[in-house]
């Protein structure tokens, strides 16, 4: 048994530097007893994929506030597939238009959290849907 807690990577991919939300989510999940790694801002797609592999996480959370999610999310999902990590659930949060939610789901995003989501909803979702490997 290598680990007990769910390990989560929160990442900011692309040049957007708004990470107030990413940090709040990371902090909240950590306070809820999960193991959280935050990449910091301005990561390339490759850097994020590498972190997923190296940190052996159970979940990837991506935060976008600059409108570039429809370009970058597909690249992250593709990258995960190429590294044999397609099973890692990907959650997206931030300023996402409602009309993009379905499109993101179609390419494999498990859940999108829109602006104004209470933090407890995110915690509950993860606790109910992602279980730590035993």
């Amino acid at each position, binding site marked *: 048994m290598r680990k007990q807690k769910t390990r989560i990577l929160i990442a900011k991919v692309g*040049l957007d530097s708004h990470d107030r939300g990413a940090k709040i989510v990371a902090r909240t999940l950590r306070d809820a007893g999960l193991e959280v790694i935050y990449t910091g801002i301005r990561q390339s797609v490759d850097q994020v994929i590498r972190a997923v592999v190296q940190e052996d996480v159970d979940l990837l959370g991506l935060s976008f506030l600059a409108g570039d999610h429809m370009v970058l999310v597909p690249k992250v999902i593709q990258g995960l597939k190429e590294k044999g990590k397609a099973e890692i659930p990907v959650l997206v949060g931030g300023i996402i238009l409602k009309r993009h939610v379905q499109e993101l789901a179609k390419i494999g995003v498990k859940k999108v959290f829109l*602006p104004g989501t209470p933090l407890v909803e995110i915690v509950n979702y993860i606790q109910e849907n992602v279980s730590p490997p035993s």
Partner: protein
Amino acid sequence: MDQEQINKEMKAWEQTALKRVLDKTAERETVFTTESGIPVKRLYTPLDLPEADYNRDLGYPGEYPYTRGVYPTMYRGRLWTMRNYAGFGTAEDTNKRFRYLLEQGMPGLSVAFDLPTQVGYDSDHPMSEGAVGRVGVAVDTLADMEIIFNDIPLDRVSTSMTINSPATVLLAMYIAVGEKQGVPKEKLMGTTQNDILKEFIARGTYIFPPEPSLKLTMDVIEYCYRHVPKWNTLSITGYHFREAGANAIQELAFTLADAILYIENALERGLGVDDFAPRLSYSLSCHRDLFEEVAKYRAARRMFAKIVKERFQAKNPKSCLFRTYSGSCGSTLMPQQPQNNIVRIAMHALMGILGGHQAIHTACWDEGYAIPTQDSARLALRTQQILAHESGLCNTIDPLAGSYYVEALTDEIEKRTLEYLNKIDEMGGMLKAIENGFVFREIQESSVEFQRKVDSGEKVIVGLNKFVMPEEEDVEQQDIFEYDQRIEKTQQEKLAQVKANRDAKQVDQALRELDSAIDQNENLMPYIIDAVRSYASLGEICGVMRQKWGEYSPPIYI
């Protein structure tokens, strides 16, 4: 009436009229506080200002300590500059929007650059993918800047540029556009934000480590002191601290601490405080709590004047002026029931005007989720015009002065801000406070606190946690600005074309000279101006500096 008499009458009121009501009906809250957590009393009276000394604490507009405003006539003489932030897509798109806003009566421009430009990448850099021309205009070479300001006379319009790490390069391009228009640099008017410290702390578009970054900031200050006398070289900005989660007191404290650090750096360069301080400007946020925000601006003017006069021995009164460009906090705008934002933005403008700013930015109501449309950009401008011309707000100076509450709050904010400044001084200054994580942690804790209060409903956000519409009724706006994915390719092709048509030898030479100027620790502005004239790209110029200095990587606090 003396204090004793007031005290007596107030006690009587508390025990009779007030008590009768409170015995029957409790107030809505047990404790009222400002947005930043300062306790707010039921009633403010002269008893709250026992030490007040009008001439010492408030004085007169245009005179030390400038609490009431930086100019003697304020808006009676001249309205503030309505300066709404705009820029998107290609240079052509932005030029069109600028000319529209100028035609609509907006007197000053404020350029939003796209993220690649802000971090010194060209449009064909791999990290630029998805971001070219998206949140601002894409600038690769002087050719783009020439188009942005096409038919906009730079000797008549002032331009504020939200650019920091590569501020030297964009200023160089602006100077070069001026040359092409026949406007000498002595006549150029405008501002480079050029505030790298807040990038490290909160905004995130840093490139180089602190030391060379500060060198570039100082290069702009020194160069403009000698050659571009009307340019506002540095806009020391608290806005982004607030947006990252800081409260009003932290915002003000970190802004003033940054100002102190910049002034110390410029003095080390051998400049006198009165050489450069008159060209510094400041930027604060317009958040939610009107009285607290106005008190913050008033405290800011008074505190800054004292710092510059007492700590740095400034002799020129202009050095003491806390001239501000402030505006709407984007984080107060909501995508839920987005038209509610129109009211919030009017409040931002109202607090800005009551606060006596020199330039005000009003956000657009659809800005919470998209680049503003032309209609919403016009409404943001009209909001300021209505308040300026229909409301009577501008007939007298600092109209909230003398309010027992606002004066007490101004004093309280000053007191709390000073405590922070003393703490930062004890740590050895702002650079230390950034390096040891103090500033990051302070902001993060306030951010967590804010979110907790929003989630618990303790802090009401209309449409989000109160007066919520069913999701199916709160439909998303259909006619929002759509980013055109083709911009990226168009911009890359344009860059390739510029590179094909320029004199490669001249570019190489300019970049080599820049490279050796870095080694010689010279002021880089003249070399960067030469480089942009040769159509060297932003990415190439920043590339030379990246090569020399490396890149900054910040500590992470969650």
